[in-house]
């Protein structure tokens, strides 16, 4: 259980490390340190096999996507139309979902591991060129990845005839410029084409079929790719020996908010429970100031909320999905008994309303209205019809049953994730998710803020 001043937030423990194994070195981002600690050995192991065999390894290990949807990387790579070339790799380093903090650490602390992961993916899936898209606001990550690429090119790990083989691929570092929605994979591609970051309709624009420049394109998250060097070095068996069958390996999670020790932890996938994370000695050590836990968000700002009743669920995508939420990007936000729930919901909803790209009316207008109504409730100007109005606006974005956590207290059955939606991407529903959770679980807090008016208030002169 150790922290390092050069990796703010990261807490090491006595657990297997797949992606954070170099974080204890201050100079972990240099090629010298990388090579001295087993770097580029995974690439060599990959190049010693035929490309399809490497693809089989990634399939066999069930490396789940770490960007949000949890789709197995090996399966995704197999979705490109047979024989259609060129194919591209676009690396999603746009991390900006509220509560999410891991990809930035991986880019700043171990950029060569990411580069090696990109190379392995390109080799295995026949991807001819790679674009590494880093969120604009991450100046240090740009510097670190840029320098690492320069070192890797000079040493012959990237570029033409890598390590003397027939494998040749360029990796271009690309900048974002501040827009959350660009993290959505089709918006990422639009942005990389030099356009406004507006998501495309799926179907037909599944990137694996029609992606960058209309060609088959694999979009993978930074953490997903960072797993590959270790996998190739240590083999499928070693990888699947960690975690569970459906969720092997480790995951980076960020626990923030009202815990004693917030931090970024590499945890064992599938078995670690939320109780372990929030209360365990090697993790967050309980709620701050000895307060009670009120609620927590298990998987990023768009995830439906959990209450203490769900603490014993493990960090496992299917189970959490069946319980009415999602693991998303590994962001857990903890709210203690002092939390003003309507204000917390407002903070989250405002985020999605603000980040709407504006293409879909239910998201653009609905999100804005949710924010306005919540704002006036929080400011003490809400009326008793506002709570129904919130639900009415929300249902126009997400018609039908909304997923929520079961709560015996309220007599609710869990409705499994995900929701129905009237929008192109998940930003619209995400604006409603916090409102729905907060209203379902803590309606009385909203009611307490509503002014019970008997007449229209008149402003008295000063």
């Amino acid at each position, binding site marked *: 259980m150790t922290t390092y001043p050069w990796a*703010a*937030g990261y807490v090491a423990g006595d657990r297997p490390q797949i992606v954070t194994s170099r974080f204890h070195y201050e100079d972990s981002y240099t090629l010298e340190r990388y090579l001295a600690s087993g770097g580029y050995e995974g690439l060599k192991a990959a190049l010693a096999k*035929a*490309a399809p065999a490497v693809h089989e390894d990634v399939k066999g290990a069930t490396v789940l996507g770490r960007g949000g949807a949890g789709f197995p990387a090996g399966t995704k790579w197999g979705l490109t139309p047979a*024989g*259609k*070339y*060129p194919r591209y790799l676009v690396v999603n380093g746009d991390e*900006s*979902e*509220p*509560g*999410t*903090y891991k*990809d930035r650490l991986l880019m700043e602390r171990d950029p060569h591991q990411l580069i090696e992961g990109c190379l392995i993916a390109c080799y295995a899936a026949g991807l*001819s*060129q790679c674009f590494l898209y880093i969120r*604009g*606001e*991450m*100046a240090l990550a740009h*510097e670190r990845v*840029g320098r690492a*690429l*320069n070192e890797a*090119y000079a040493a*012959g790990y990237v*570029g*033409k005839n890598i390590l003397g*083989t*027939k494998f040749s691929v*360029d990796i*271009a570092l*690309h*900048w*974002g*410029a*501040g827009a*959350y929605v660009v993290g959505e994979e089709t918006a990422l591609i639009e*942005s990389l*084409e*030099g*356009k*406004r*970051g507006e998501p495309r309709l799926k179907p037909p624009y599944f990137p694996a079929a029609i992606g960058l*420049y209309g060609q088959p394109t694999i979009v993978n998250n930074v953490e997903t790719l960072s797993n590959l060097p270790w996998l190739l070095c240590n083999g499928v068996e070693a990888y699947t020996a960690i975690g569970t069958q459906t969720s092997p390996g480790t995951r980076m999670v*960020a626990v*923030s*908010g*009202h815990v004693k020790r*917030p*931090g970024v932890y590499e945890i064992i996938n599938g078995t670690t429970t939320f109780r372990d994370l929030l209360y365990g000695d090697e993790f967050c050590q309980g709620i701050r100031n000895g307060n009670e836990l009120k609620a927590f*968000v298990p998987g990023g*700002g768009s995830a439906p909320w959990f209450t203490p009743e769900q603490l014993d669920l493990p960090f496992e995508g299917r189970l959490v999905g069946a319980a009415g939420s999602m693991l998303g990007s590994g962001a857990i*936000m903890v709210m203690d008994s002092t*939390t003003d729930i309507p204000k*917390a919901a407002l*903070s*989250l909803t405002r*985020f999605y309303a603000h980040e709407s790209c504006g293409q879909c009316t239910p998201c653009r207008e609905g999100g804005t209205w949710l924010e306005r109504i919540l704002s006036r409730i929080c400011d003490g100007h809400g009326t008793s019809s506002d709570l129904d109005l919130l639900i009415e606006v929300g249902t126009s974005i997400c018609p039908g049953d909304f997923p929520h956590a079961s709560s015996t207290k309220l007599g609710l059955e869990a409705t499994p994730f995900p929701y129905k939606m009237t929008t192109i991407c998940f930003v619209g529903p995400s604006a409603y998710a916090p409102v729905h959770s907060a209203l379902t679980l803590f309606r009385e807090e909203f009611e307490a803020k509503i002014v019970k008016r008997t007449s229209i208030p008149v402003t008295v002169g000063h």
Partner: protein
Amino acid sequence: MSRLNAANLEIAREIMSRYPVVRSATIPLLHLSQEQNGYVTREAMQQIAELVESTAAEVYGTASFYEMFKFEPIGKYCVNICRSISCHLVGGDDLVEHAEHVLGIKPGGTTADGLFTLEAVECMAACTEGPTLQVNYRHRFRVTHQDFDQLIDDLRAGRLDAEIPPHGTLARERQHIPADKAAGNVSPDTPITPAWMEAAQ
């Protein structure tokens, strides 16, 4: 002078050379021009349009989508305070208020001396370390009100010049692909099976 100067034009051409479709260089070139001028000018967008074979309207359409691009001069230091949920839970809003008080401006405003622009922004991927802020996109963590005052003092006195370049400069290290090492762009119009895949079949 708001078109790219000769040195930056050379950098622009190198950036453009890394994409098989030149329009992909739009955002990187907008950053480059913002680095040169502190903000994105009309002339720069016109020039970028010529470079990436697009129109000024399209370049503006793209640029205006992204929050980092400014279309008029702002402070030398852009101070962005996170107001998203994790920081909100541990006092992010108070920090914004404190900053308003110390700098005498509201979010979106710039101090009269042109040194500071204040922005209340969304999550900056440091959520366990709130309240968080960035100065010209360099992070500061667990910022107390005293830390904030000290930071402003240090910036005013130029004590952080080595660490924090003026607004516009993102990374001080650029990617450079040596010509003899480059694999080369792969155009979407050339349906060639990669050599290592052919060998595998």
